[in-house]
């Protein structure tokens, strides 16, 4: 999901009609967009766009293109004239194994005001960040054309090469920019991984930018006075840089700018021929309407299909044999398969108008035996006066260790936790029950709680998920017997023979603790919680508990779920 800010008034201006927020929201839904917020004083809409593969929609202009189609204000692929600029870009073969591709265009008569510049920057940033994979796959640069001489050189430089980066007064070496400039710290790793320094230079040797990190301070600064600009997109994927350029050109053309093409001269190591960008030749896909009709369960002939595709801003040719040829707008590269066209057709038909059908797939339903087993255990433990808990699987390591007097254990750790509170996976349940009791000391006793829940374990070869059951009683006169009788009750109702052998365990009191085993397999623990722990957790009543691993109970059907 991508979130952008847009002007409510400007959207209405573009569409040439007044729309209530509700009407606008309904129209935006055709562009897979929702209104997240509206700040009236600032005329600002916060819009959430749900597609991660349609960067053309990440600006107001893109949504308006879609809406105009739905409202039949415009149809087919929007077009604009592209003139030759006489500009060219020479790509150096030294970039072949790092960031070899570039797409360029020139926009003139751009009428920039402060608001439009911000919108343009917002769109570029969203594309760089998401579609451009944080500039790794592609990044956008814009420059003041009046300062640039053709041919522009896209090549590599020494780390000692110097220029003044955006926002700075003094020249810095490329090396220094990567390590010290704010953008260098953010995106510098991409360049460091290349082992070379990509650079864009004007024919006179002036530096335009260090892609994909930072523009130069003068030529790379777009202001309200800029009327003509050079747009470039560099990246690792030929198709990506070109579709991003096409999106930007389309958006600027929608704003009335004149677009001029640029010749990209590639060395044979990178691309076998020179390319003129933006590349506006239309890709197409042949669609068999019979398949679409069956897939969607709607009736559409080729004429109707053409109409619908034009509504979605595609071009369409009717072919023999109930087929159509769909031409795809150059700012879209998300059409991989005919199912993508099927969706365009059904969106144009309107999901809410085609009518749902009744269920026809008849099957027998059922819970998994493990769920049935867990439900049985839950039922017995509720009957034993237990109040059921559902707690987090992701937890704080101290809850599983120091809080219950256990040493550091081999816990499964999260590499990228948001906070310490959610940084390991629980491997057993009872420590958190102790934690829950400690959070409820103001409530009346007895406190009888239990959880039947998933825990995650591992050994040398495997990682798996299994379900345990833990029960805990806190009361002024709670003793071993209170846990014992409930465990016994559970096992008796489950028709399972079990043994308890005395053991010592740091969480429990010596002589009041036992290991539960079934068929000689250890599968649980029972005992009185060590007063050390009670004191530490400020629990002022005795606490007794047991925990048992359900997969070890032979009369249940609880299986462990292996990850691999």
């Amino acid at each position, binding site marked *: 999901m991508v979130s952008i800010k847009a002007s409510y008034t400007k959207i209405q201006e573009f569409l040439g009609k007044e729309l209530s927020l509700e009407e606008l929201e309904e129209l935006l839904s055709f562009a897979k967009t929702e209104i997240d917020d509206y700040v009236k004083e600032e005329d600002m809409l916060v819009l959430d766009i*749900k597609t991660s593969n349609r960067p053309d929609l990440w600006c107001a202009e893109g949504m308006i293109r879609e809406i105009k189609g739905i409202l039949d204000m415009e149809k087919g692929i929007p077009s604009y004239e592209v003139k030759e600029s006489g500009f060219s870009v020479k790509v150096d073969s030294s970039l072949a194994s790092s960031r070899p591709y570039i797409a360029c265009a020139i926009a003139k008569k751009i009428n920039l005001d402060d608001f439009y510049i911000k919108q343009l920057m917002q769109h570029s940033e969203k594309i760089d960040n998401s579609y451009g994979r944080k500039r790794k796959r592609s990044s956008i640069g814009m420059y003041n054309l009046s300062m640039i001489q053709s041919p522009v050189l896209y090549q590599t430089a020494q780390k000692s090469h110097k220029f003044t980066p955006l926002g700075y007064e003094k020249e810095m070496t490329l090396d220094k920019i990567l390590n010290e400039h704010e953008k260098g710290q953010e995106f510098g790793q991409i360049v460091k991984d290349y082992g070379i320094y990509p650079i864009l230079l004007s024919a006179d040797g002036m530096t335009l930018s260090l892609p994909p990190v930072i523009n130069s301070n003068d030529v790379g600064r777009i202001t309200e006075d800029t009327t003509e600009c050079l747009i470039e997109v560099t990246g690792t994927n030929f198709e990506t840089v070109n579709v991003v350029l096409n999106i930007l050109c389309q958006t600027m053309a929608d704003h009335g700018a004149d677009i001029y093409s640029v010749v990209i001269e590639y060395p044979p190591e990178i691309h076998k021929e020179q390319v003129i960008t933006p590349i506006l030749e239309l890709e197409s896909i042949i669609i068999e309407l019979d398949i679409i009709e069956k897939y969607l369960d709607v009736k559409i002939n080729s004429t109707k299909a053409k109409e619908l595709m034009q509504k979605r801003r595609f071009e369409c040719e009717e072919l023999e044999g109930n087929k159509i040829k769909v031409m795809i707008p150059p700012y879209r590269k998300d059409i991989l398969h005919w199912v993508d066209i099927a969706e365009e057709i059904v969106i144009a038909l309107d999901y809410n108008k085609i009518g749902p059908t009744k269920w026809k797939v008849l099957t027998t339903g059922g819970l998994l035996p493990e769920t049935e087993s867990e439900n049985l255990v*839950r039922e017995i433990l509720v009957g034993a006066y237990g109040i059921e808990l559902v707690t987090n699987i992701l937890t704080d390591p101290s809850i599983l260790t120091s809080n219950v007097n256990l040493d550091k254990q081999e816990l499964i750790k999260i590499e990228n936790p948001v906070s310490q509170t959610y940084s390991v996976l629980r491997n057993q349940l009872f420590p958190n029950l102790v934690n829950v009791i400690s959070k409820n000391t103001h409530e009346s006793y007895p406190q009888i709680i239990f959880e039947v829940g998933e825990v995650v374990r591992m050994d040398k070869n495997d990682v798996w998920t299994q379900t345990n059951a833990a029960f805990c009683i806190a009361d002024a006169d709670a003793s071993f017997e209170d846990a014992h009788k409930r465990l016994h009750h559970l096992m008796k109702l489950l028709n399972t023979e079990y043994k308890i052998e005395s053991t010592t365990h740091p969480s429990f009191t010596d002589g009041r603790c036992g290991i539960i085993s079934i068929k000689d397999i250890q599968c649980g623990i029972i005992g009185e919680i060590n007063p050390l722990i009670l004191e530490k957790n400020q629990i002022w009543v005795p606490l007794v508990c047991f925990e048992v691993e359900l997969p070890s109970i032979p009369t249940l059907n609880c299986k462990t779920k292996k990850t691999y």
Partner: protein
Amino acid sequence: MSSVKKKISLAPEVVKLYKEISLKDEISIDELKNITKLDHGKLEYLLGALTSNNLVERIIEVKKKVLLTEAGEIAAANQLVERRILSALKENQPINSSDLSKILDCDNRELNAGIGYLKKQGMIDIVQGQISFSQKEVEVSTDIQEILVELSKGNEVDIQNYEKTLLQRSLITIEDEKKIIVKTIVKFEEMKKNIVETSDISRLTPEMIRNGTWRKTKLREYNLDVSPPEFFTGRKQPYARFLDEVKQKLVAYGFQEMRGPIVELEYWNFDALFQAQDHPAREWSDVYRITNPSKGKLPKENHVKFVQKAHEDGYDTGSKGWRYKWDPMKSARLVLRAQGTSVSARTLVDLPIPSKYFSISRCFRPDTTDATHLSEFNQAEGIVCDPSITFRDLLGILETFAIEISEAPNYTFKPDYYPFTEPSVELSVKDPKIGHIEYGGAGIFRPEVTRPFGIDAPVIAWGLGVDRLFMVKYGITDIRELYSYKLDWLRSARMS
């Protein structure tokens, strides 16, 4: 007073007490205690029944009681210090105060009070620390001394004129003494006919049943105005119980349950679902990765090869694919299940046709926890597969979910996006209070997802936001409550 009196039910013990009080017009509670041999608590309890019926009156009389302090007791026994000073002076004068203190064996504070008193009365002179009789012959008043003596004997003395002096010199304290007097309002004899003697037996006992005395016994009436004591039973966690209900409904629609592991291979969480390996959803910020181990093993089956092809060139689906070099090492990385669809992906292996599956599974995303976000939440997910299935069937399924499970007849469908389905639909429900709520979504699995598992029939994938559903149904505004540690809520949360 009206001559027609209401009938009053009184326990035998109360009646007995009433008679006793009625013998005298007025009796103190202490006397009553002596007569009845009841302890104070019980007596007050029984009196309550009489006062509430306006038969007797309970009056509290407050009296001042003068008590000697420790100093007062000493002064009563040994004479007041000023008198002792005077006798010492008779023997030995002039004298300084420290010698005086030694002779009298009293502390300085007391001594100074005595000297101060005598000085004020003009009976002594102090010249350069030497104390001697003044010229003036004044008798020391004996009144105070007498009062002290009387008080020490326990007699009542009128101290009015000396109260201030006695208090200032800390010889006495004054306490309020409460005296409870019970007065008869209505004589027992007058009430007699209107009194119904009730039982003081509060419960039926096994003995009474066995020996038949229950026939002659009337049990005390239960007071219905009193709230019963709090009562906590064992119970299922409210949210877990709600999920049980959702499961039950899904089973009734013919869905088979499926489950998967919490720690998941990226292969099942992303690759098998045709999410490109550089897709933003696979970033650090969107999915939890685990360390130790950080990688697992990919399945040995052929589908891995076909999934790879689907990514690289679309496999045999006619799709363009994502056109990049697929890396099995990335696919073997371990993550916490970020979407319930990974369980559906595992089910695609040897999927029976026709089939319908669901799972309610815990999923994890690196979100900062607040009232609307958790890093851990539940997703209800599932698939429906049959060769006859169409997009309109998918809408039919969502419609049923909206009406039957979400209980929200006011729904709309909106175009949506999932990397693994096409077309994709959002089920949006209009709530009168909250506005539009995204309750769920669905789509038809892309062929790039199903073909690697040898499936030709369309597979509908659907999901329901069960966390949200529960919150709306039970009016919960903070999502953290679903996993609450609050015993108060767990014990008392309403069930309907």
